[in-house]
């Protein structure tokens, strides 16, 4: 999985998204879910991360299934739930393996995305990965100033709100300062931008792309066959 280029990784997500539209009956739903689960088992280096993603997607899948059942469509409930899993889970897992800088290289050089947009997007993604550090600092400050989380649900909720707001404020202020710094490193006038690293397409990428398409096709093919 780590050997695939980021565009191929995202292709897994997009293929599953497209395929999920064909999840309309139970056989297709089961076939697609099983195919992705088997692929995850065979291809991923650890099971923890995909399971964590599965749990998160499972919440929304469960909610969709529950509402389908409450609306009196009991037979359809498992299909609706599995459709959400097929739609969201593969993409969520694949995104975790994407290196923002490499994604920029490939989108700009292979897909010929607009240079400045891609570079700005990559810098923005980088800031997202920097948020963990900021979160830790914000949490430390709150704890040491007596505003840390407690077991009381009301204060816990207030704490979560304050942290989220502070992180948002920091992200916005940081974004404007970063854009100043970027402009002052030639970005404001970057017309013919180059890329420091190439974006080669390997045989593994071709195999990966074929697999992404094949997995996405499991649901529609099953539907046609049954």
């Amino acid at each position, binding site marked *: 999985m*780590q050997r695939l280029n980021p565009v191929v990784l995202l292709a897994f997500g997009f293929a599953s998204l497209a395929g999920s539209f064909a999840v309309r009956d139970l056989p297709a739903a089961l076939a697609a879910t099983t195919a992705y689960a088997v692929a995850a088992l065979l291809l991923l280096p650890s099971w923890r*991360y995909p399971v964590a993603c599965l749990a998160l997607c499972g919440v929304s899948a469960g909610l969709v299934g529950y509402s389908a059942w409450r609306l009196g469509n009991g037979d359809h409930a498992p299909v609706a739930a599995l459709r959400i899993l097929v739609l969201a889970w593969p993409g969520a897992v694949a995104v*975790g*393996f994407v*290196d*923002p*800088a490499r994604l920029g290289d490939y989108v700009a050089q292979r897909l010929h995305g607009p240079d400045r947009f891609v*570079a700005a997007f*990559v*810098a923005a993604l*980088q800031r997202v*990965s*920097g948020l*963990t*550090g*900021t979160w830790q*600092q*914000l949490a*430390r*400050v*709150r*704890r*040491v*100033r*007596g*505003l*840390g*989380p*407690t077991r009381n649900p009301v204060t816990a909720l207030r704490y979560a709100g*304050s942290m989220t707001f*502070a992180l948002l*404020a*920091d992200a916005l*202020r*940081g974004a*404007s*300062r*970063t*854009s*100043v*710094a*970027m*402009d*002052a*490193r*030639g*970005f*404001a*006038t*970057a*017309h*013919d*931008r*180059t*890329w*420091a*690293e*190439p974006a080669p397409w390997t045989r593994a990428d071709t195999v990966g792309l074929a697999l992404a398409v094949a997995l996405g096709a499991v649901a529609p093919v099953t539907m046609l066959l049954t």
Partner: protein
Amino acid sequence: MVRGELRLEGFTWRPLGRRVPVVADLDLHVEAGSRVLLAGPSGAGKSTLLHALVGALGTTIAGELSGSVRVDGRVGFVPQQPGDAVVAERVGRDVAFGPENVGLDRDETWRRVDAGLAAVGLHQGRDHPTAALSGGELQRLALAGVLALEPDVVLLDEPTSMLDPAHASAVREAVGRTVGGGRATLVVVEHHLEPWLDLVDRVVVLGDDGSVVADTTPDEFLRDHRDRLGELGVWMPGLPAPRPITVDPALVRPERPLPTLTASDLTVRLRSRSLRGSTTTTALCGVDAAVAPGALTALTGPSGAGKSTLLAAFGGLLDPDGGSVTGLDPTLASRRSRDLARDVGWSPQVPEHGFLAPTVAGEVALTAQRSGRAVDAQAWLELVGLGHLAGAHPYRLSGGEQRRLSILAAAAHRPGLLLLDEPTVGQDRVTWAAVAGIAVAAAAAGVVVATATHDDLLVDLADEVVDLRAGVRT
């Protein structure tokens, strides 16, 4: 206009949320290839001037701009908070950003990346994660990014404020090589002027109101302006160290005195983890150190030595991977937030991360209110020259002002342990004396005071020094 020339005419800037302009009707002309040192007290508008030259005022930074600002040529800028300049996850790609923008081919890009990293003394390699760099290392990374761009105009906002003398001098040499021989125009904002005077050919000093109070050559600057500018707060070479101000002991006397805290065999690893692999940096490795009540302990060492990490460990702000901090039962690390706050005050390295209240005065009073203690916020603010900003939003202050506020926010509730991370960065002589005065007075009143710093003047005031090198005590 010639390439590398800068011209400000009638430049006036009023940031959003302030009633009066920070800089009013300023005229400044810098010829191409000239090297200017920009000095002045904290809050004088030095960073504002650099932001104007970068073209950020009125576009990225909100406010009202009038007059004209003209800059010809390619600009490279190192901001005051170096973390803001990071655009990539890895060191090499970050430095490569500038060369990529100007359309260099791969060979030339990487040649400049390697040269830039070597010039500022960052030797961790191209693939080192930027998230694992310390404040001083980020500062050097930002400079490497600017050097790799080979700009016509180099703008530096306190580029050595978080560096030890050796790295600071390496940085100045690298800047000198880039701008020397008229290759580029330089405008550098610094508080510690002396080491830069050999490098520049002009010194411009801004006053409290953002006007030019001196515009001269380095020689004349040293000869004619020493006493006048020294009183204004400028760090004039040759003047004796400022004397820390006297602080009323009642302001800092600890509500609950603490015993000596001892770190034994302390090991802390910092992980930056992602699915694409994780990098572990050892910040502290088997460190033994103690901080005692009634003493000011300075944690020193080059950037990345583990000073901030040790400071945080003493305050119970992180769980060590090995060893322990003893002296209190229950330990600070195991305490709940409110119990921790009663005994600990911490001023973080990035002051903005520490602000929780919508006003400056509210910020000073906050922890005291949480701990049920009385506090005279206005007295504290007057002490460090922030009295006139009591109603302002903390985000609206200048870098040096924010740092002083962050120190007050840590000290005002009279904790028994006061931890200050680089408290004197961005301070002029006057505000330095206030910051140092608080640290000294707190120690004299029986507080355990520890500070991570590379400021020699502050280290001179310390009762104990813990010197670290790459996470190990020397």
